[in-house]
């Protein structure tokens, strides 16, 4: 050390034999002396109470003590008394000093400390009738408020897209490409795996039924139509809702908790343009591609299973597919997926923005986001099925 204090610091090696403070605690005890007196000893600290053996023994002997106010207490043998120990004694005395008590001054100070404070928690008065009525009116309009806020978010998104079209060079392209990679490219393995397995399962299930009718070749029609038109897009959307929808909510929610959202607003960076729009656009573009990818994986699984279960060769499968499934089905699936993508991203952003700065709200927001977006995906899918029932069938 080049810079020494003028006098040696107390921790210098010259200090006499070092003693070390350690965490030890002797058992707290209570003993009756036979003349109506009680003697307490040992260490009455939270540390010694944290040993189950010590605590059980002490609690038992405290319980056995006759509860009379004229017991003479001798606390002088107590080695250590902290606030928890003092509280235990005080509660045992029913929050009043016993008639006779002998104790050391420093222990008396601790007990007086505990005795000084009031230990009743104020209870909130029950809500009055008008308060209940007000709460009811607020909760009734909640659905309307959610709808309004969601509409505002969507409107803002449309306006932001307008801004982007007018001045594309000022768009948040880096955010956009980053999100595209996150939502799209990194989702490929899991969607492929799930799609492949669903295709295999579906092919095995239907092959059993078709064999009964001798209509084995129709497996191409069933798999092609159901996977491309329905299962592929919905499966992909559910996976992405769980994967990316929750991520969007958590990301924006944490930005709320750490005041990053406020910082952005102060700098004049609009949330809609920089946070919502890149995510929504990225998912609108990634979702149809993932949906097609999932359908492809599922068809591959179905093709393998059909070959193994029914002996339908992959080459026949490939040649029969375009005849069984008109191309319009693919376009319908892609359009549907783009809508799913927009909705999942918007729902994720909506719940992310609604997060309050605490951990509980973050967890709740993420759950609501996933549940809501999956529900909306299935509702919208049903809507598409009804609206386009005349499209894509032969």
């Amino acid at each position, binding site marked *: *050390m080049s*810079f*020494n*204090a*003028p*006098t040696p*610091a*107390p*921790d210098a090696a010259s*200090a*006499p034999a*070092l*003693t*070390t*403070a*350690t*965490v030890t605690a002797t058992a707290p005890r209570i003993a009756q002396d036979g003349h109506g007196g009680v003697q307490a000893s040992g260490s009455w*600290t*939270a*540390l010694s*109470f*944290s040993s*189950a053996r010590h*605590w*059980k023994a002490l609690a038992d002997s405290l319980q056995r003590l006759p509860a009379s106010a004229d017991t003479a207490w001798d606390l002088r043998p107590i080695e250590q008394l*902290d*606030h*928890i120990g003092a*509280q*235990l004694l*005080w*509660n045992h005395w029913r929050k009043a000093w016993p008639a006779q008590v002998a104790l050391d001054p420093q222990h008396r*100070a*601790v007990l007086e*400390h*505990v005795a000084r*404070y*009031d*230990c*009743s*928690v*104020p209870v*909130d008065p029950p809500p009055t009738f008008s308060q209940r009525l007000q709460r009811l009116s607020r909760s009734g309009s909640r659905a309307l408020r959610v709808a309004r806020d969601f509409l505002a978010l969507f409107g803002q998104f449309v306006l932001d897209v307008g801004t982007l079209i007018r001045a594309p060079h000022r768009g948040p392209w880096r955010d956009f490409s980053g999100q595209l990679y996150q939502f799209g490219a990194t989702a490929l393995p899991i969607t492929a795996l799930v799609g492949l397995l669903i295709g295999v399962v579906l092919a095995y299930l239907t092959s059993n039924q078709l064999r009964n009718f001798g209509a084995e070749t129709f497996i191409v029609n069933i798999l092609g139509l159901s996977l491309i038109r329905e299962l592929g897009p919905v499966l992909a959307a559910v996976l992405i809702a769980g994967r990316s929808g929750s991520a969007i909510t958590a990301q924006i929610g944490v930005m709320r908790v750490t005041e990053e959202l406020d910082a952005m607003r102060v700098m004049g960076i609009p949330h809609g343009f920089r946070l919502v729009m890149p995510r929504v656009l990225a998912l609108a573009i990634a979702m149809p591609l993932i949906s097609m990818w999932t359908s492809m994986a599922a068809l591959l699984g179905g093709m393998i299973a059909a070959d193994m279960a029914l002996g339908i060769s992959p080459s026949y499968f490939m040649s029969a597919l375009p005849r069984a499934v008109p191309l319009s089905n693919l376009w319908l699936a892609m359009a549907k997926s783009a809508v799913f993508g927009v909705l999942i991203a918007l729902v994720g952003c909506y719940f992310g923005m609604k997060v*309050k*700065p*605490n*951990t*509980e709200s973050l967890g709740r927001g993420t759950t609501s986001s996933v549940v809501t977006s999956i529900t909306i995906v299935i509702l919208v899918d049903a809507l598409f099925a009804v609206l386009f029932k005349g499209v894509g069938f032969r």
Partner: protein
Amino acid sequence: MIDAPDAHAPTVVDIRKLWTVFPSSRGEQVVHRDLDLTIRRGEVLSLVGGSGTGKTVLLRQILGLEHPSRGDVTVLGQPAGQLSGRAAASVGMLFQHGALFSAFSVLDNIALPLRELKLLPEALIRDAALVKLQMVGLGPGHANKSPADLSGGMIKRVALARALIMDPPLLLLDEPTAGLDPESADGFCTLLRTLHRELGLTVVMVTHDLDTLFDLSTRIAVLADQKVVVAGLPREVIANPHPFIQQYFLGGRGRRAMEALHGDDVPDSQR
């Protein structure tokens, strides 16, 4: 200022030949090199140093949240981090931003370490938590509030009550008065001084607030050049010729803080 304990008091924290090395983009960054520090019972030791000198890292190593690259940290006779289970009864920590659990009410936050023992009766736990709440200067009316409803100063007080619930012999404070208005900061210092006297605590604190520093510390340890360059009474530390110390304590802010505290105590040679 609090009276310094005698030099023969038992050792609470003992740091020997501590090395902390963080991997960085350009090889390794050495934060502590052969750092020695001994903290005795009853002391209020302040850790002082520039940004990036590893003050908070040192606190986290005392708590056992981080492990040193080399060297030993002994807390209350045991290696740091081996106190788990009964840790709350040995070491209390006041985090810089309080670290209250936002899912629990104020009372439940304070009572949590006691509840986790799963032994003590509920009435005792509640009363003990209420006593601690009032000891840090908050009324029982705040007991049912959630941490989100509290101001910054109140959060620090609740966090202190939680750190003290099991009356640990060692209390660590990370920037206890940062972000508090002067009145709250003064109140907090008074509170800490009272608690230190009544509970016989050993306090280790990281602070940049010179008023708090001179108000509370019995000893100041200055971290610079990857080690403790000097540890001693405040008066001894400011007399040290190390350039960092001169700049830190005798720069404009430091001089104002000391003049306000000591009147014309500062020797002329240092003016």
